[in-house]
Structures are given as C-alpha cells and as structure tokens.
C-alpha cells in the first residue's frame, strides 16, 4: 500500500496527542482526587492541561507546519 509522508507525520502526531492526553488524565486524577486547586487563568490546573495546553500545542504544530510550507520544506 502506498502512503504519503503526511499520513506518517499525522500518525506520529496522534500518538503524541494520545500520550499527552494520558499524562494529562493521570495528572488530572491525582490533582482532582487530592482536591488541590492550582488555578491558572481561572481554571483548575487539571482542566487547564487537558483542555488548553494539548490543543494549544497542536496549534503551535500547525503554525510550525505553515512555516515549513512557506520555507518550501513541505510542498
């Protein structure tokens, strides 16, 4: 079967997200169970990691991808 390099990158990214989400969920469990409320911009840190940081990292990746396109490194 023939695959594009994009799909390989996408799978690697999905693996990264999966691991990131698992770590975030693990931290969430610990923090939530102990009732620690470390608040950053108003959200408890557990929600903050899961809901803001993971998507924000994906957006950074998108900007990086566009930058590579601009430089001609990705077609």
């Amino acid at each position, binding site marked *: 079967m023939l695959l594009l390099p994009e799909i390989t990158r996408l799978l690697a990214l999905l693996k990264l997200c999966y691991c990131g989400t698992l770590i975030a969920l693990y931290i*969430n469990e610990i923090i939530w169970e102990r009732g620690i409320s470390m608040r950053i911009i108003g959200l408890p840190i557990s929600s903050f990691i899961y809901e803001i940081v993971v998507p924000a990292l994906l957006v950074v990746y998108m900007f990086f991808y566009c930058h590579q396109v601009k430089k001609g490194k990705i077609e």
Partner: protein
Amino acid sequence: MQFSTIGLVVLLGYMLLMVIVGWASSKYQKDSTDFWVGGRRFGTVVMTMAIVASIMHGGSIISGIAFAAQFGGVAILPYIGFTLGMIVILVVFAKKLREMNAITLPDYMGKRFKSTFLQGFTAAVVAISSILYLIAQIRGMGFVLEGLLGLSFELSMIIGTVIFIAYVAAGGLLAVVWTNIIQFVFMWIGLLILMPKLWAATGGWTNVFVQVDKIVPGWTSPTGPSWTWIFLLSWILNWFVAYATRIELITKVFAAKDSKSARFCLPWTILIVMAFLLYGNMYLGAAARVLVWDKVTVPDQAFAVLIGNYATPLMAAFAMVGIAAAAMSTTDSLLLMSGASVAHDLLRKCYFEPRGIVKDEKFYLKASRITIVVVGAIALVAAFNTPAMLLQIVSYAVALIGATFFAPMVVGLTVKRVSKISAAAASFTGFIVTAIHVILSMQKVAWAGKLHPSVSGVAVSFIVLFLVNAFTRPAHEDEEVNSIFFKKSNVTV
C-alpha cells in the same frame, strides 16, 4: 428609548448592510465559478474571518452558553476534536482539494473516484443534511429576531430568511464571505460588550470559576458534573470527524486564492475559535450559572436572561444583533452549500453533462440563483411546522455528513490504491450505520445512548472501505486521477 426600538434601529442598519453587500457582490458574478467559489480570490485574512463566522453559529452562542452552564467543563470539549480535525484539513486535505479546482465536496468524490453515482449520492446527502440543518438555524434566527423586534416568531423567520436569500442569490459566495466578515465584527461586539458588567458582577475571571465549582462540584473538571469519560471521548471523536468534513469550512478552501492561503488561515481560525469558546461559552456559561440560573426556566434562555439583567438597552441591542449575525452567518453558508449540491452537482454534473447537454455559463448562473431561492423557500416552509422528531434528527446532520465523507476523503487523498466501489461502499455504509444509530438513540436504546452515532458510522465505513478495496480494481490506474491527486513528488512507496 425601549430595548425593542434600539434593537430595531441596530438590526435594520445591520440588515441594510447585508443587502448592500449582496447587491455590490452581484456585480462580480460572471459565471458559476464566481457564484459558488467567489472566483477563487480570497487571501488568508479574509478566509480566516469568513471561516470563523461560518462555523460560529447562533446556536454555538445561545446553546453553547446553556450547555456550559449545565454541564461545565465538557463545554470546552470541541477544543481537541476541532484542532485535530483542522490538522487533518491542513496536512491532508487543503492543498489537494484547492489544486483540483473543485467547487463542492461531492465534486471531489466524482473526480477522485470517476463516479457520477458517488457524486450524486453524496450531493443528495449534503443537500438533505444541509436543508435539515438550515431549518433548525432558521428557527434559531426566528427566536432571536422575535426577542429583538417583538414581532411574531413566524414573521421574524420570514424577515430573516428573505434577507439572507436575497444577498446569497444575488452575490453567491462573494456576498456570503463579505457578509460573514461584517457578521464576525457584530458577533464579537455583541459578546464583548457584556464583559465589563459581568466582570464586575462576578469578581473576575478566576472568581467566577471558583464560585461555580462551589455551587456545582466538579463543574470545572473535564467531564463536568455528569458526563462519563467514554461519552466525552466519543464526542471528541465526533467533533474531530465533523470538523474535518465540515462543508461550510471545506468549501471556503476551494475559494482560496492559492493552496498556501487555504492552509495558512487554519491555525488562525483555531486561535480565534478557542478564544470564543473560552470566553463565549465557558466564561459566560459560568457567569450564567452563578448569577442568573435561578431565573432560567429553560437552559437556552441563559444568555437572554444574562442580557436582561446585566446589559443596558443599547448593549442588549448589540448583543442580540450579534446573535442574529451569528445565526445568519451559518444559515447563508448552509443555503449556499445545499444550493450548490442541487444546481452544480445534481443538475450540472450528474444530469446535463453526462448526457452531453451543453448549456452556457449564463444558464448555470441563472439556475444557481433560482436553486438558492427554491431551497431557501423550502427550508422556510419546513421551519414553520417542524415536527419535534425532525429537530432531534437535525442535531445529527453534521454527523451524517461526517460519516459519509470522512473515510473516502482521508483514505482517498492519502492512499493511491482505492477503488471506486470501495469508496462508494464506505460512503454508503457510513451514512446508513450513523442513520440507524441516530434512530436507536432517539428510541432510547440503552447501548446506543452511550456513544455518539457518528463513531459507529465512521468505524464501519473504514472497515468496509479496506475490506472491499482488497477485492476491487483501484481508480489510480486512471491517468487523470493520478495527475490531479498523486503527482510523483507527493508519493512515497
């Protein structure tokens, strides 16, 4: 001046602006490419604002605030699914879809798999799903205008629908994009104008979340006070599929001036949508739960009650016109999509051209405009008397489109060896399985309610595609398909 008088003045000004844009855009319509994809002339900034306006609809504000107030942290769940969906568009779809010079998603199905049947079937799915969705959006807009103008619900729907049919029929996508940009501005003014008063009332950003978590323990957790992790994850998957195949978004990709603009607008879109969800749903939802929840009888009233209690008449007028703008910015895009499926895909590509019937561009431009008026009128009539069951189905319209397109698009654009029959089978089973799951969910079958219907449809669609593909002849042996989708530099063995 009373609220309704100020509201009327602001709304009339806004609607006049819409009509002027429609009239000005009509001057640029020479052929059907101008009409359906705005002559493919939009740059990154225009694309970003237009996409944001078309995916942030009236429901995403009114129902989004109600949803956040009720269920807490889960309201922010679209973040991950939405971002992943946009990455798929950025990395896999955008360049190839833009460079194939298509007009609609069914166009892709027709060209990639050399199949008029597949183009016709997917066009019918898009047309039906868009019209269903359109009905719900027209009703939403009717509720907003009813509150704003103090007119009857029916008259409010007629006024709003006539306005957006007029500018879409006159100016096509060019009018939709420029009105979307104006709607984008109104929408943000409407939301942000409330901020100072709510900030003072809740004691600030952090305070409102501390307070809401005391009132509803677990509100700020990712699953909120009542969702399970499995249900949450199936929703994230649904958002991922829905955004990767969202037709009002993908069609804008076809309208970009080049493949770079089609891609560069996507991360900016996400940033703006994330800001919207964080403030427009989470913050306002928490504020509604803390400040006015005891005065709310139906969750969807939360935003209106918030405005009624914490906004001056002028602020309230702008906020409500902002909601009307959000509702219109999606309805006009949906009207254009359903019109394109009928006039471009079904009439031109599946009926006239295969039969060798030659019609000039003037004919197709006229047919496009007539289709827009007819489709808009059908949706308006249906919106007058919508059965409750139909409204339930409407909430799954996006899932039906996602399950129909997702597998043939992801695999078709990345894997060379995909057959026409396997793509058709995947598309068909994705639609059917999701539709059956929707019906079972509506009949309250226990297992069906634990997963979002698109999850089963997409899963079966992928399985069917790979199984059927193993036993059928691939479409990549066709030179035209190869030259459009698999130029040598794009492929590794």
